[in-house]
């Protein structure tokens, strides 16, 4: 027994040494001058891992395309792109440490923000302290950008830019819709967007007959849905992430709930949602910051939305969604700003970002005084025939709004 224990201890110790050595090796900065290093703290493990993987795909695609084109042109000299990843394990406090470590030890030149509004906000205090230009590719809440920071930029417009056009569309196309029921995941972004919808629904003369939050990791929504069903709402609005929304949708069908309009944020923008929900995804409406159906001709490395979607499909055998596109866009925007500044000096690149006004595959890019993008018009879409069909903005409309969700 004793010997077994000693052996075990020795094994554990040697394993620890190996791991430590591996960490040291991966943390040592590559000594190359013609490289621009971008730090990307991501929740690569833990509950947010699927989202982090999307972000990473977006960054990697950008780095690959930028390097294929010879790198970033800085005043005539070409620099290769290198992205340094750190896993902060879906643990927000750790995202702050990871960000600091990237700046002080990995010596990154620029940063991508941590995932989501909460972590991006927390980590932005560090990048601001070291004056490292940062683009947050997945943070929409206005509270992230109202801290007076000069080095933080974001590629998502505020939450109300998703809910306002959606409500407008419902009011126009379904004037009989008066009673709205809202079920929101009790989490920063899903709850914020539900509150925005409540506001815009009331402003448009609708009555919010049900507004409830459900806890993270809820396995069963039948009680909430039964209660909602008894109120006979005409518009059912549910927020959460893909697993929540799949489950709610399934249980709505189980409970034979029908309504003229059913909207969900933020699952239907993902292909996995449509695949998994099957027939029950039909006529679900939603809004997102970007959609593969939008059509923009840009000045960035990806050139156009069509080309971006093609490159993404070639590399990952899947259609990009807004999360991946936003990450790629963050990289492409950095590239445009660095090339515009003609320097990798943080202050100059920051100024170039602040004054940027350019068209990209992602849409028009112009940052407001807080650093949050103000130029995007997020598309409203509906699943029709197992495909997302853009309804708004009118310029890229692909179909008519259909009423009735069975």
């Amino acid at each position, binding site marked *: 027994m004793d010997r077994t224990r000693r052996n075990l201890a020795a094994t554990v110790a040697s394993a620890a040494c190996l791991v430590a050595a591996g960490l040291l090796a991966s943390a040592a900065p590559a000594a190359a001058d013609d490289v621009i290093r971008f730090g990307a703290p991501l929740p690569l493990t833990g509950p947010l*891992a699927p989202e982090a993987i999307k972000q990473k795909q977006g960054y990697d695609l950008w780095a690959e395309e930028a390097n294929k084109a010879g790198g970033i042109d800085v005043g005539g000299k070409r620099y290769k792109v290198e992205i340094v990843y750190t896993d902060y394990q879906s643990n927000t406090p750790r995202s702050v440490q990871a960000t600091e470590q990237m700046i002080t030890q990995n010596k990154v030149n620029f940063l991508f923000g941590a995932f989501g509004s909460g972590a991006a906000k927390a980590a932005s205090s560090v990048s601001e302290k070291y004056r490292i230009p940062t683009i947050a590719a997945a943070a929409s809440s206005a509270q992230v950008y109202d801290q007076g920071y000069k080095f933080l930029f974001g590629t998502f417009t505020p939450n109300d830019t998703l809910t306002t056009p959606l409500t407008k569309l419902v009011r126009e196309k379904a004037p009989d819709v008066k009673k709205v029921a809202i079920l929101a995941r009790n989490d920063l972004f899903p709850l914020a967007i539900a509150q925005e919808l409540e506001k815009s629904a009331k402003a448009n003369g609708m009555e919010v007959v049900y507004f409830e939050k459900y806890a993270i990791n809820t396995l069963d929504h039948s009680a909430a849905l039964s209660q909602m069903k008894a109120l006979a709402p005409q518009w059912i609005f549910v927020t959460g992430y893909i697993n929540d929304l799949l489950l709610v949708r399934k249980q709505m069908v189980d409970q034979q709930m029908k309504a003229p309009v059913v909207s969900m944020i933020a699952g239907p923008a993902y292909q996995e949602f449509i695949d998994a929900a099957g027939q029950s995804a039909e006529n679900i409406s939603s809004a997102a910051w970007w959609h593969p159906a939008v059509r923009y001709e840009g000045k960035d490395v990806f050139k156009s939305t069509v080309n971006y979607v093609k490159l993404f499909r070639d590399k990952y055998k899947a259609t990009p969604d807004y999360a991946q596109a936003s990450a790629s866009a963050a990289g492409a925007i950095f590239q445009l700003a660095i090339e515009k500044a003609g320097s990798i000096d943080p202050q100059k690149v920051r100024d170039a970002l602040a004054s940027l006004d350019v068209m990209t595959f992602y849409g028009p890019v112009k940052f407001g005084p807080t650093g949050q993008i103000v130029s995007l018009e997020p598309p409203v879409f509906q699943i029709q025939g197992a495909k997302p069909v853009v309804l708004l903005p009118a310029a890229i409309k692909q179909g008519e709004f259909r009423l009735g969700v069975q």
Partner: protein
Amino acid sequence: MLAAQVLINALVLGCLYACIAIGFSLVWGVLNVINLAHGSFIVLGAYGAWWLYHAFGIAPWYALAIVAPLFFVFGYAIQRSILNQVIAAPVLVTLTMTFGLDLLLNNVMIYFFTADFRKLTLSPPVGSLSFGGVVVPVDRLIALVLALALTFALYVILRRSRTGRAIVAVRLDRDAATLMGVDVKSIYAIAFGIGAVMAGCAGVLMALIFPISPLVSTAYLTKAFVVCVLGGLGSVSGALAGGLLLALIEGVGSVLFGPALATTLSFVLLIVFLVVRPQGLMGRKGFE
């Protein structure tokens, strides 16, 4: 009408919770091992059902017959090769061991299946039955019947078979069982194997109902935990009572206080039980 619907929902969900918890309860009760990999076992079973349905068109109720023996071998092997080595150590060691096992299994599943959510969608869909306005989804009903059948089968095995009696004997008094000639190590492995079978089968049934991803394993594990504390460890009736009580609390709590507080309420109840009645509703009896 709402009250009737909420009660029916709770009844159905309660049986599913019992099904999730029963293997966990057996392993905890007999082996004194808190199997933190139980949630991942369930998810693995769900992937089994998903794969069998999508690759070969085998419906989940037939998939049970394929998944069950595989999980028995899987569970038996894990107990024999890994857990039996540390079974005599303090509970923290086995806890850490199963925690490690859970991490491993979970990440292997993420590697092979990715963390994307999948859904086993029966085609054609089985729909719902409606009794005067009260709706019961047929897939949940099927899962419920099968869950009860499995639970009953386990009850009979433990009560009637020689191995089952040996498991109960080990559960009640390990040393006395050893003196009576019971091969404790083998019984441990069989009990863990049965626990794994129950988890795998629960996974197959849950695949009908819940989205499948390695990430939901924690949700299953916490439910199993609460059910065991509420109902009492190691007994079939305890798991059923715990499952029903939990579903009822969640359902009624959701309607009265809102769904956000329903989960909180169930954990408050958990704390109350731990303080007032730590043995759970059905006491600390063995598998009679």
